């Protein structure tokens, strides 16, 4: 089998990096990005300088500004970060069609296996992309090269916040052996705790155990642990088009809230975004999930489904409210609300001889069609379904 070459790009503190491109005066100064109007805002992203002072993502802004007094504060601009990510992706796409990326977070896996004749050796690709991105976009990503996503990811964690690392084929186990197990991706908190209890602190110590031995404490996860400890990872770099099985939107509240009307208004908005997306692609969803993240750090997920898929806001809204009802189990304020529509399939293009929809549904369909047209031309916020409360401020993101 041919050796694979996977490059991992990682822009540490992506939002901060983008803001520094926009305003070079922010460089080399501690920077915190968080909703500024809210009394109870939490940190969205922070620069390395602020991190060194103890600021962390999700920390109360009040506390963050106290421990990093000189930090400059900026409000998050997700659209800007998305734009920068798109530009980054565009450059990378010149080298390979196999790219796996997150949502505006500066992370990319690029499979450059077999592109030698076109673009030269993989290290050259890494260097070239970084040079281009640094010159044209002003951001400086870490790049690491390995024979799998696992190895390149671990290497990237190793050199963070800046740098590059190449793990030669065949050196994977040797590279991983002295590293702490916490650098391995995909391990749960309990697994890390267990490893610590057995005093298996390095990947090498873990690699010293056979599959059979690992089965004793880790059961069915033993194969995974064994493989990653040896640097074995066969998972493919999966492009977004091959993985998109869900429509996912999220609202982070600038000020956490436990006001039911406010949260329900947010759910209406998220449903309208998901509905519009589905209708645009002539898709329907059979299940809607609501993910609530509470201010105490816990989160609850509940879903509601129906037999027949739909992309009507009205149907999706009912499902979402039913899921919300079951997910919202305590009085603690909510930090964010996420809506996930899945079990998607194509809307049948064929019209029914005897339509199964009533007059009301057909009217709703027309109404939504008209709203979609207006939104496409003038923006999503221009028109929306009436609700008892206005939308809460916050950071809104949509992943499709």
């Amino acid at each position, binding site marked *: 089998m041919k050796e694979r070459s996977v490059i991992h790009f990682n822009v540490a503190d992506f939002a901060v990096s983008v803001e520094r491109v926009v305003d070079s005066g922010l460089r080399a100064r501690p920077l915190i990005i968080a909703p500024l109007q809210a009394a109870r805002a939490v940190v969205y992203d922070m620069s390395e300088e602020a991190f060194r002072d103890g600021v962390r993502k999700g920390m109360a802004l009040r506390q963050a500004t106290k421990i990093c007094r000189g930090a400059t504060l900026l409000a998050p601009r997700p659209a800007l970060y998305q734009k920068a990510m798109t530009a980054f992706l565009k450059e990378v796409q010149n080298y390979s069609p196999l790219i796996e990326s997150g949502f505006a977070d500066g992370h990319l896996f690029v499979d450059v296996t077999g592109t030698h004749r076109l673009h030269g050796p993989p290290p050259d690709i890494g260097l070239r992309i970084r040079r281009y991105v640094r010159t044209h976009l002003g951001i400086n990503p870490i790049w690491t090269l390995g024979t799998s996503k696992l190895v390149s990811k671990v290497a990237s964690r190793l050199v963070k916040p800046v740098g590059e690392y190449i793990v030669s084929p065949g050196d994977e186990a040797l590279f991983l052996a002295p590293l702490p197990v916490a650098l391995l991706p995909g391990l749960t908190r309990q697994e890390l705790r267990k490893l610590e209890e057995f005093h298996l*602190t390095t990947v090498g110590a873990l690699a010293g155990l056979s599959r059979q031995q690992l089965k004793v404490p880790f059961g069915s996860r033993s194969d995974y642990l064994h493989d990653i400890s040896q640097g074995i990872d066969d998972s493919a770099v999966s492009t977004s088009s091959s993985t998109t099985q869900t429509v996912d939107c999220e609202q982070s509240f600038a000020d956490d809230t436990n*006001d039911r009307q406010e949260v329900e208004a947010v759910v209406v908005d998220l449903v309208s975004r998901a509905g519009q997306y589905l209708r645009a692609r002539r898709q329907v969803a059979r299940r809607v999930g609501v993910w609530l993240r509470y201010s105490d750090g816990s989160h609850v997920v509940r879903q509601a489904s129906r037999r027949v898929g739909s992309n009507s806001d009205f149907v999706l809204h009912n499902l979402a409210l039913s899921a919300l009802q079951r997910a919202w189990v305590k009085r603690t304020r909510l930090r964010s609300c996420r809506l996930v529509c899945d079990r998607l399939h194509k809307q049948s293009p064929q019209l029914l001889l005897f339509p199964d929809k009533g007059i009301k549904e057909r009217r709703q369909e027309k109404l939504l069609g008209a709203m979609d047209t207006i939104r496409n031309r003038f923006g999503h916020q221009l028109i929306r379904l009436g609700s008892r409360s206005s939308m809460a401020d916050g950071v809104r993101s949509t992943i499709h």
Partner: protein
Amino acid sequence: MFPLRVRSYYSLLQGTSSPATLCRQAKRYGYTGLALTDRDNLYGLWSFLKNCKNEGLRPVIGAEITDPASKKCITCLVRNRKGYSNLCFLLTERHMGKKFNLATALQKYAEGLVVLCRDYQLLNNYSRQGVEVVADLGSRPTETGRLLRTWAKENDIVSVATPDSDMAEEGDFQLSCLLRAVGEGATISEVRRKGENEKPGWLAGPQEYRDRFAVWPELAAATERVAARCCYTGPDFGVVMPPWRGDDDKPAGLALRQKAFCGARRRYGDDLGEPVVERLEHELSTIELMGFSSYFLVVRDIVHRKGKDGRRTKRRICGRGSAAASLVAYCLDITNICPLKYNLYFERFLNPGRSDPPDIDIDFSWDERDDVLTEVLSDFNGHAAMVCNHVFFKPRMAIRETARAFGLPGYEISEVTRRLPWVYKHGEESLEQRISSLATFRGRDFSQPWLEVLTLAEKLIGVPRYLSVHPGGVVITPEPISSYVPVERAQKGVPIIQWEKDGTEEAGLVKIDILGNRSLGVIRDCLHAVAGNDKAPDEVSWQPEDDAATKLTVAEGETMGCFYIESPAMRLLQKKAASGDFEQLVIQSSIIRPAANEFVREYVRRLHGGSWQPLCAEIGDVLDETYGLMVYQEDVSRVAVALAGFSHSQADGLRKVMSKKDKKLRLANYRERFFAGCAACKVDLADVERMWQMMMSFDGYSFCKPHSASYARVSYQAAYLKRHFPAEFMAAVISNQGGYYSIFAYVSEAKRLGLKILHPDVRESEIRWIGKEAWIRVGLQNVQGLSTVFQKRLIRERGKRQFSGLEDFFTRTKPADNEVCALIHGGGLDGLSETGNRSALLWQWASFQRARKSASHHSLFEVILPPPPLLPIPDQRTRLRREFRVLGFLCDMHPLQFFAHRGRGLVKACDLSNHKGRRVELAGWLLNGKLVSTSNGEVMEFLTFEDETALFETTFFPDVYSRYATILTSGKPYILGGLVEEDYGALTLTVHGIQLLRR
């Protein structure tokens, strides 16, 4: 118009206003009286009656009664004594009955009650049963009200308008919403939205009701007629004594005499001597005169457990309070201290002039107390119940509950509440201002929603939240107890009456305090452990206060673990006094009270020969025994009698009023009389002022001499055992879950006593700690995470045969995962391991679990563990860190030794005596502290630290405290800098700076 249906804040989490506020409001509106009808209770009865009296209002007693199944509600108003009894029975039935049904409940208990109701079916039912019913149309005319009025007219039933109110005024709406949010576990926004649509009622003025009901003017007038029928103004039971059910029909007085003399002969020998006989005769006649004979006998029976053979055996007790001044009590074995030997005055306990019934308080070992209570409650089934506590919202609870209703996350709430002091004083400023000014909140920003939370929480403070059980008060009555007071069941299952201590006393119900005392358990366990030892004391003739070695222990303040004399303040005082005498200890345990610091210093000075004059020439030798200082509660009375011409009962009243919460008015009255009395005796005004100030130091808690003497006896017993049997004693202290200090501190003390701390070991450890000679072994009870069931199973299985190995242990004891981890980290399984590698032990446990899972399919075979892989042994730091997490202390070393590299140039605590008057730096582990308020109202703290060599006491004066309050947390290491000071041989460090010690 007479307000017939008004709820106070005793309608828990519903009403917002106190009976006092409601009475004030009713008076302002010009009502002639008020009916207080709280939901399913009479909690506020005594407060209501008192406030009606103060405001000149006519009280109507009543309560709302709800049906838990149908949620219907009626209001019962009391017409006469019988009606009151019936209401108590009804309320008891509502709380204790298995199937309470409003429709049938009134069949038995309707007499003497007027029932207000708005449910047709119930009205119909009650009318047929002959109950005196009234149709309740509520606070506003409504359509349903119109129909009810018409129906009532047709059926010849009177209709009335009622306030049906939860609030004294409309402005209480926010508090009402908050209470509902707390009660329903809802968010404040949700409740507010609901409340805006359906606002709770408030007590309006009579004219407003007349205006509202202008269409049906007869309704307001009818309220007056209904109120006129309810002329019962409150219970008047007199003094209700517990009934004694003797073995024969002998009168209680005679039985008491026989038992007292019999006990006296056991105590003093057959030849009693004149003083004993005289005192007994005097006491018995007073007891008989005041009707207290049966009370003494009932308490005696409680102290002496009745066995299955009918014979009584004495429990380990410590009679405390003023009852210890009674020779009869001593002879009945209710108390442990001879009142003749220690010159204790019987009149402090009982005198013919005393109008209120005194309590007899008995301490039992803390782990035996519940059995005693169960026995009493079952012996007097239906006639006995415990006294309750009305638990009010205090700042901490108010802030927590309000913040929850606002949805703030738990960690954020704890961040605020854990910084609040336990003692809290009310002042002019708002809660937010007061909290912001605390040193522990320095730099904390209370922006929204915290500002709103604190503003609302302030309104919640002082509102009752729930009922808890009084620590030990039991009431036993001759008639069924529910005929005096409604009874309900507390969370922990015992029956409780609906009144707290003061209400119980006001009603004349005599309570017996059955309290728990850990030190009695310590002494019991220690004596049990040393039984058979030649040096073990014989309890009958044991006089620990006469033992020279014990005296030395007390004089050196080496009394950590000893009952009542282990606190830093007490230990320092003993060091300064350096006497170790029983009489001095009695004084010391009484003189240490919050407001008496300057007298403590003066006491030490005088004890060491400093000159002193009596408080004034006229006082004579009244206070000579205590060096001219007022030390005991009765000193207040004695001075008042000697100088101001108070009678004994008046002086006793002055003493009592000092311990009351709402004393301001009454105290002012006593002050006036005291000053006038002294002036009449020509005492100098400056002297009077000084004496009054000294009397005011008895504000809050203080003790009488019999109580102090009784406790000092237990203190000496503990000190004796500590001195002569340190291993057994320290094991008993920790097994009984310590006292003033944490287990960590007691383990350190054991190490300082030269004892070796042995790890827990599943082959050796008991549930409790074991101590012998020069070692103590950790008990399973202190391995965090072990369930009681597992601990018992382990002991039971080991009793059958010793564990042969890990597989055997796992198989037979069936532990949970966290239990095995805790045992391994605590070292409890080291003995079953060949290598001592705890990582390997954990692996073998995982291996056992995996094998057990597979074995469930092939249960014929025993589990055989394969050898573990070669796992690295945890390094020492990791091992100790885990051990500390599981045990809360380290067996072999002090955590400060981890920081040894930081200790260069630091002084050790045991060397402080070589640095008197000098500034030093030393490392210390913070054990605990005590916040105090200076005379200027500033806050300072006394903190106890230790290093691996000794304990040391520190003082943080207000400026230093305010600078460092935010970093002070128990169980953390620090470097302290300060001045070593000496006062009468006791060393303290006055801290100037402190910083957290990091690795």
